[in-house]
């Protein structure tokens, strides 16, 4: 035991003199930083600022008597995640394709289809649940949304709306019609060439000017519009990569079978293209999730924005470190688990492995 430990140390930390030097240096830095952080977290920090404002950080100014609607949404999402986890972590079609004998009956693809439909239905369902329909559920205007709830809603609505828009743009950019191609390319390059914060700023101050009288979206909707316009350009480039990965023979074969252009695109090309770019789209979603923090700059109270307004409260003056560390942990947990799930999904789908 001790021999292997010594051996491991020698092979991994002290192979050469400069490696030994690096190890000692690394240990010193880790100790200096680590001990200080631990001492601060346990003794120096005053976590009251987080404990007292948990609800505020979670939902912002959402009416407290309507909180059950948020909880119900959380329940729907966690239920769906759990079901997806169960279904996708079982051996499915892949093992059969590899020629192995099925040791249990093949999971019905029906279950997976139901799940996909359930996910697609979940987005409008939750939007209605949170926003209300004005009849059964009282309307909660978007300016009452805040905290993590707003961050998540911005990300979900942003990706859900920018996905179809992005697919259309990608098809436009790969179109055989030069005018359509030029317009799509111009749009994509314009929005990929400017920072998100300038797009958000522009939609805040410009959107109402371009709309007819009587149509005056509030700040949250304008921010969503900015996120969608911006994100669609990136989704389009990702999807275009998928479109290019579909072999030309597929299109020719579809035409030979007598499918029209529209049928070829929707039934043959898009399914294969989208499947190839699912991991990249998840990455897109993660970066959109992080990017929603920028709405704090245009005055929205998302997770980061609400943290800043808590810090403006004289009771919590100067408690930057505690609050920012907490907020960073929330963002980190969401981003990291999404990228972890995406890596698993990538392996399951066998993208790139075939």
């Amino acid at each position: 035991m001790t021999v292997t430990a010594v051996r491991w140390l020698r092979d991994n930390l002290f192979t050469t003199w400069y490696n030994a030097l690096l190890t000692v240096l690394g240990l010193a830095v880790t100790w200096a930083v680590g001990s200080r952080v631990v001492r601060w977290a346990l003794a120096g920090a005053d976590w009251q600022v987080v404990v007292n404002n948990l609800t505020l950080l979670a939902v912002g100014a959402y009416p407290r008597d309507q909180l059950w609607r948020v909880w119900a949404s959380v329940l729907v999402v966690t239920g769906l995640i759990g079901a997806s986890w169960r279904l996708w972590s079982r051996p499915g079609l892949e093992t059969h394709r590899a020629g192995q004998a099925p040791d249990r009956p093949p999971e019905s693809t029906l279950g997976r289809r139901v799940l996909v439909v359930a996910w697609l239905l979940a987005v409008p369902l939750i939007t209605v649940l949170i926003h209300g329909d004005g009849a059964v559920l009282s309307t909660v205007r978007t300016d009452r949304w805040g905290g993590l709830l707003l961050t998540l809603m911005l990300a979900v609505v942003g990706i859900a709306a920018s996905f179809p828009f992005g697919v259309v743009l990608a098809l436009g950019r790969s179109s055989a019609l030069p005018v359509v191609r030029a317009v799509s390319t111009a749009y994509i390059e314009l929005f990929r060439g400017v920072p998100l914060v300038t797009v958000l700023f522009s939609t805040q101050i410009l959107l109402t000017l371009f709309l007819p009288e009587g149509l005056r979206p509030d700040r949250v909707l304008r921010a969503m519009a900015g996120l969608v316009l911006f994100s669609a350009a990136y989704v389009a480039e990702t999807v275009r990569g998928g479109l290019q990965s579909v072999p030309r023979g597929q299109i020719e074969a579809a035409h030979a079978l007598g499918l029209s252009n529209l049928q070829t695109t929707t039934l043959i090309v898009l399914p294969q293209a989208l499947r190839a770019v699912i991991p990249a789209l998840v990455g897109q979603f993660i970066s959109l999730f992080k990017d929603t923090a920028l709405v704090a700059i245009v005055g929205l109270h998302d997770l980061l924005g609400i943290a800043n307004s808590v810090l403006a409260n004289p009771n919590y003056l100067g408690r930057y470190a505690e609050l920012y560390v907490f907020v960073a942990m929330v963002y980190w947990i969401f981003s990291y688990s999404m990228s972890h799930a995406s890596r698993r999904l990538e392996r399951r789908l066998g993208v790139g492995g075939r």
Partner: protein
Amino acid sequence: MLRVISQAAFLAALVAVGAVLYANLVRNLRQLGIPLGFEFLGLEAAFAIGEAAIPYQPSDTYARAFLVGVVNTLRVAGVGIVLATVLGVLAGIGRLSGNWLIRQITAAYVEIVRNTPLLLQLFVWAFVVFGRLPTPQRAIHLGGNVYLSNRGVVLPWPEPAEGFAVWAAAALAGLAAAIWVYRRLLWIKLESGRGTRPGLAALALLAAGLAAGWVLAPAPPFVISTPVLAGFNFQGGAGLTIQFSALVTGLVVYTGAFIAEVVRGGIQSVDRGQFEAAAALGLRPALVMRLVVLPQALRVIIPPLTNQYLNLIKNSSLAVAIGFEDAFFVARTVFNQTGKTFETVAVIMATYLTFSLITSLLMNLYNRSVQLVER
């Protein structure tokens, strides 16, 4: 025929939508009493800019104020790109190190930074790290007359004096000679296998050039300006404000983590056999990296690296959140004063598009030079 008709229909629909939007814009602006037009750029700005790299005063025009912002953006982007590349390459190599501890440290750095929003990180740098520094009177002395305080970083700075031109000429000559000799000696070494010590020779030539310049110059080439505490702040030396330091640190740390992944991917894309073959030919590890691995890895690295540079330039607009007066910050101030919505947005978009286009162009030129030349 169908193609022409469908394109014409598409174009017509686009023009119609554009016309409706434009009509709305004109009507809404008329109601607000703000005419369209760029004449305001020639008016007096009447606001101060704390950190101007080119001469500026409030009586200058809006156009000039905007130029100050653009120069500030370029400063941040230039410094940021260089430092982020250095940090990213080091961290990327660190993630592939044979040393377990270094691998863990760099992995922790990359995973923490990549999974939290940049804006949050900028707030932490600005308010938690740099914002908590002591006043200049109690500045942290980093040694060698470098001081860290809540007014920023000050350090001694050599200011060019009389003999600078002569010295600079000699130093440049030394540098040119060093590069030429290094290439020549390395070539001889690779062709003949003789140990010619190219690095040592080049270093000696460079030192000779620097020394010769110092001797030849009729007067000392530099005057060292050292920072001295005078009243509430430091005088002399070169200073970086807190906002600039926090912004550059934040951008470098954030982009560095992404570049690290790009570099790691690039090195991993080089076939293992290439390392082994190079080692079998008797090349030392450093030369294996420089002559065999990096030239091949660069082909994979350059395109995503370009994207990271573009991201850094675009992300520098977050300066607005921590009070650094970059192009977007100044544009927003101009908008608040003039109420010129459409024009301000047009100027901002045109500025960042220009930055992006120039960067893409330069990196594409460089990319062409490292790509495999095929017949």
